Structures are given as structure tokens and as C-alpha cells.
């Protein structure tokens, strides 16, 4: 068992369900004037029915691009999918015709985008934008039925006064209401997979919690597996079942959410968690990960994280040899660090804080 070929097979024998989405060795590049940007570089993971898979990473780590790419939503050119496989329900998305992919988008796979301010068409009524999503996939639905369904959806995601809101334009909606409308649009055709790309990033903190509620409700209603793309570890802790940590276009750690917080085994993950402010310890400064994310045009040799890594300490292996994503613990805990074992016994600051808070 190599561990890498089937990175996210759950070893728990009682149920080994078929993944709804299975991405293998996906490579996505963008040709730019400065060179080729390796946005996604050999990414593999599975999403199982009913679960929420969190994908975390800094801006530009390839979190969103991998999702947009498999759905054919990146502009090509300059973008191109170099290699890989993305099996959805057994069919490879990357081999589908444009038409087949279009049928899937908004139907069985739906997306919620980051910025509800710009993601809705400013010149079309909200109701129409949701109803057309329904009618794009269920052509026999009459206008009246589509309207009724739209109003029901708006109600479901917590838009008050949905009958009146149906005829309003996006600029008459607040940010939170727009994101609710986006969620309603996404679940309109009862998708099997819901991809939420930073669904709360652009919103006020007070609104974020409400949107999460709406998202949870939408998830329950549609029974969809969810991919939650975010850089907010709090959101991951709240919603995700399993977590993929991405850095510089690669998966660096993959495990279930409890293990991730209790026993992170990649120095980048540890760094991410340490950079959060503590609630229990009085801190004068935040502790960011030193340095900048690497350029995706000319990546540092060896481990892409080594220039910023506290664990590397100048060891030559980090600089020369690229660490494979390998199994390092039970329950399919994967990490791409040569020295992941040295983090054994290390729990994240969050857990420490929690324990400290529990036993003052």
C-alpha cells in the first residue's frame, strides 16, 4: 500500500463508500507573460457523499483554481489543465464535452462564490437569476412553477419577504441577503456536490454566522457533499469533517478535522494555527508565518515550504528533495513533510488554549 495512490481512502472498515468526487494528480497551469504559473501541481483527494471537505490555504495556494478548473470555469487560455483525473460519480470531468460539463454545472455540482457583491448580475432580477438556474436544468418546468420554487428556496435560506424580494435587483439586497440568494441558486437543482468558495469572506462578522446557518440548512436540505474552500480555520473547525491543507498548489496535509487540530503533522499547518490570536494568553503580537508564499512561476527546489519552515532548520534534504504526500498516522492521516514524525506529540495552539481554558 503506497498511501499516495489512494490518499483518502478511509481505513475504517465498517463503510468504505465510493467517493462522489475523486481528484487524482490534477495539474493546472496558467501561461503568463512572466512564465508558466503552476497553480495546481499534482493534487489528489476524494470527497465522500454527505461529508464536508474543507480546503485551507493562503491566497494563491490553488484552493479555488482546482475546483474551477475541473468544472471548466477557468479561462482557457491562459489556463490549461495539463494532466490528471477528476471522477465525479464515476465519470471523468476532464474528459467530458463542454455540453456534458455544462449540464453538470449548476445541476449535480453547484458553486457558491466568494463575493456576493459581484457574483450576481446587476441588471437582472434576483428571482429571475435563480429561476433560470432551475429552468436551465429542468426544461419542462414552467415559469410559474419555477417562480414558486424560487420563492420557496429564498424562504429556505432565510430571505424574509421572498415574494417581494423575487422582483428586486441585486443592488436592493444587502451583502448577506445576496449570499443567501447565491446559496438558494446553488441548491436549486438539489446538487450532489456543493462547492462553497470562501462563502463568508466578503461579509461582516455578524452576518457570517447567519450565512453559515443558511449554508448548513441548505446542506441538510440537499444532502449534498460539500467542499468548503476557505482560509478561515474557525470555519473549518465549525463545518468540516475532513481537511485538505494546500500550499503552493499542492496538498501538504490531509486528515480528519479532529486530528488536524489535535495533532497537525505539517509545519505549515502548525504555522497557520499558531498565527491565530489566542483567547487565553495575553499576546502583544500575532505570530505570522515568516516570509512570503513562493512564486508559482519559479518554485523553490525541494520542499516548497522550506524557506519559511521552522522545522527544516537548514537541513539539506528539505532543500533538495521534494517530500511526497505520505501516510504518517492512523485513519489515513497524510502529510508531505520529510520530518513529520518530529511533530509527533505536538498539538495545535488552539487545542492547548482549549485545554488551558478548561483547566485554569
Amino acid at each position, binding site marked *: 500500500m503506497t498511501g499516495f495512490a489512494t490518499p483518502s481512502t478511509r481505513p475504517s472498515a465498517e463503510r468504505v463508500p465510493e467517493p462522489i468526487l475523486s481528484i487524482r494528480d490534477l495539474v493546472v497551469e496558467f501561461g503568463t507573460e512572466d512564465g508558466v504559473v503552476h497553480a495546481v501541481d499534482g493534487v489528489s483527494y476524494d470527497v465522500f457523499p454527505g461529508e464536508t471537505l474543507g480546503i485551507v490555504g493562503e491566497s494563491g495556494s490553488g484552493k479555488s483554481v482546482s475546483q474551477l478548473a475541473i*468544472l471548466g*470555469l477557468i*479561462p482557457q487560455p491562459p489556463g490549461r489543465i495539463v494532466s490528471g483525473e477528476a471522477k465525479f460519480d464515476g465519470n471523468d470531468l476532464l474528459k467530458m464535452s*463542454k455540453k456534458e460539463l*455544462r*449540464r*453538470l*454545472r*449548476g*445541476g449535480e455540482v*453547484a*458553486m457558491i*462564490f466568494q*463575493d456576493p457583491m*459581484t*457574483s*450576481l*448580475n*446587476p*441588471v*437582472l432580477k434576483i428571482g429571475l437569476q435563480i429561476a*433560470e*438556474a432551475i429552468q*436551465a*436544468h429542468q426544461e419542462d418546468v414552467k415559469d410559474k412553477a419555477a417562480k414558486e420554487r424560487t420563492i420557496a428556496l429564498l424562504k429556505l435560506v432565510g430571505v424574509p419577504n421572498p415574494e417581494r424580494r423575487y422582483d428586486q*435587483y441585486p*443592488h436592493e439586497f444587502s451583502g448577506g441577503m445576496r449570499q443567501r440568494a*447565491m446559496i438558494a*441558486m446553488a441548491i436549486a437543482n438539489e446538487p450532489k456536490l456543493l462547492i462553497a468558495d470562501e462563502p463568508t469572506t466578503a461579509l461582516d462578522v455578524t452576518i457570517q454566522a447567519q450565512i453559515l446557518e443558511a449554508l448548513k440548512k441548505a446542506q441538510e436540505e440537499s444532502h449534498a457533499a460539500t467542499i468548503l474552500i476557505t482560509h478561515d480555520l474557525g470555519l473549518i473547525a465549525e463545518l468540516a469533517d475532513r481537511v485538505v491543507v494546500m500550499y503552493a498548489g499542492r496538498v501538504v496535509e490531509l486528515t480528519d478535522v479532529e486530528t488536524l487540530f489535535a495533532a497537525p503533522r505539517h509545519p505549515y499547518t502548525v504555522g497557520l494555527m499558531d498565527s491565530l490570536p489566542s483567547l487565553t494568553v495575553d499576546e502583544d503580537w500575532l505570530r505570522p508565518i515568516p516570509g512570503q508564499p513562493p512564486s508559482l512561476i519559479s518554485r523553490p527546489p525541494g520542499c516548497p515550504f522550506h524557506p519559511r519552515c521552522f522545522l527544516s532548520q537548514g537541513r539539506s534534504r528539505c532543500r533538495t528533495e521534494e517530500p511526497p504526500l505520505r501516510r504518517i498516522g492512523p485513519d489515513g492521516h497524510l502529510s508531505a513533510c520529510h520530518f513529520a514524525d518530529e511533530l509527533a506529540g505536538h498539538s495545535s495552539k488552539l487545542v492547548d488554549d482549549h485545554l488551558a481554558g478548561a483547566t485554569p
Partner: protein
Amino acid sequence: MVTYIIRRLLYSIPVLFAASVLIFVSVTAVGNPLAALKQNPLFSTQTIHNIQQRKHLNDSLPMQYAYWIKDAVTNKFGTPLLQPGTKIWDDLKRVIPHTLQLVLISEIFALIVGVAIGVYSAIRQYSIFDYAATTFSFLGFAMPVFWLALMLQILFTNIFIKWHVRIFYTSGLSSQNPGGGIHFWIDRLQHLAIPAMTLTLLSIAQYGRFMRASMLEVINSDYVRTARAKGLPERTVTLKHALRNALIPVVTVSALNFGALIGGAVITESIFQLDGMGPYFLGALLSQDAYVVMAWLMVTATAVVAFNLIADVLYGYIDPRIRFD
């Protein structure tokens, strides 16, 4: 909507008033309209005196302005400086429709073709079509109007000489005996075709570029990505979601163009000897008739204001974020 239009109409009154002051000041600043006449042996002192009396030229400037405005409002700009028997409005009434016909035909055609070219260039960016359209646009921008007009004139004249087929006429507005009804209009279109083509080719270049830029911005926007993510067919994405947003800036430009062209197709109209606003203005300038010049400037200013209003109404119709109340 109706209140909005009424309010905008009321707003245009002070705008036109300001325009009239500017026009009067700049035209009178050129000099006494009678100075040239006084040196012309064909005009007797009595004639000049009569003109002075009729146009109140001995009064102060504000009074002259007031008389002019009174004449313009109550008497449709009154009479020209020299021929007291004729009326300025009769001439304007004749030339304005001619210019309108020319401008409407060419601009509407240019809008349709330009928008289509721009949209297609944008969705097939860097294709052969896009490069061809770009090349054509720059040619269109660089080509002098008079040269294009003359070339088309020569081309269609030669076609007539060689094969004796009269597809389009190369000058004038109508034939000797154009007939009535439908025959008149077919004849008119045959006369307007080449001048309209001249104006159209230039405007197509402009609208095409404008539309391409605007469309490119829109098709890379988040909401177009949302439309695709919904699984809408590409046709719907382009025509329903992208086009309407991309049209907003083009509407503004074209409305301004319309207004400007009402007074400004001077070269084209002169070359094709169309009895329109352009040659009429040239004639007034040559005969140094300040009153005709001022009337012409007022009509043009009104046209610009009117087309701006139309642009704003269209703008609000396309973009719901523009509120009418």
C-alpha cells in the same frame, strides 16, 4: 419614469439658456455683423439702416440678446440678416430632416454592425476574426472622411459608366422626378446610401472597439462566471448576461455621437451635396449671417441635450441601478 423625463426636460431649460448666452456672446464677439456690409457698395446706407432697425443693433448688447431670444422663442428664430422676406425656420425645417435621415440610417446601421463585431471579437479574443476586426478598426479610425467619401463616389460612378447600372447615386438627395410614395423613398435611399456608408464605416470602427473592450471586461466578471456555473448555455450567458451589461457604456457614446452628428456631418454632406445641416451652416458662415449661425448653433445644442436625455432614459432602462425617482 414620466416624472423623471419631465424633470430632465425642466433641467434642460437652464442648460439651453446657458448655451444661448454662450452662443450669443461668442458670435457677437466676432464683430459687428454690419461691418462687412458697410464696405460693400451693393448695400445702400438706407438698407443698412433698415437692418439696424429691424435687428435692434443700436441697442445695448443685453437688449440685443433679449430681442434675439424673443425672436427665437416667439418667431422661430425670425429672419436672416439680409433677406427680410425669408424665414430662418423655413430653411432649418428643410435641412434638419435631411440630416436626420442620414444620421439615423448610418448610426443605427453602425450600432448594429459595430456591436455585433465587438461582441464576436470579445468572445473570440485573439482569433483571426478579432485581428481582422482590429485591423479594420484602425483603418477606419485613420481614414479621412473626405477621402473615403470620394473613393466611394468614384467607385459607384465608374460602376455606372461601365455597366450602366445605377445602384446608388453619388450626389444630391433626390432625382429630378423621384415620383411619389414608395418610389420617392427608394430613390432617397439610393441617394443616401453612399454618404451613409461613409459615416457608417467610421462609426463601426468606433463602436466595434468600444463594444469589444466593454464586452471583454464583462465576460471576465464574477457574475458571468456565476451564469456559467449555473449551467446556462453559452449563448444565454453571452446574450442575456454579458451583452446587456456591456451595452451600458456604448449607449452613452452613441447618444453623444448622434447629437454631435446632427451638426457635424459637414464634410460628408458637402461632398455629396446633400441639402443638410452641414452645408447650410457653411453657407451662413460664408455670407456672415450671424442670425443664421446662431439659430444653427441653438438647434445643434438642443439636439445634443435631447440625445443626452434619450441616453439617460435608455441607460436607466438597461441598468436598474439608475433610479428614476
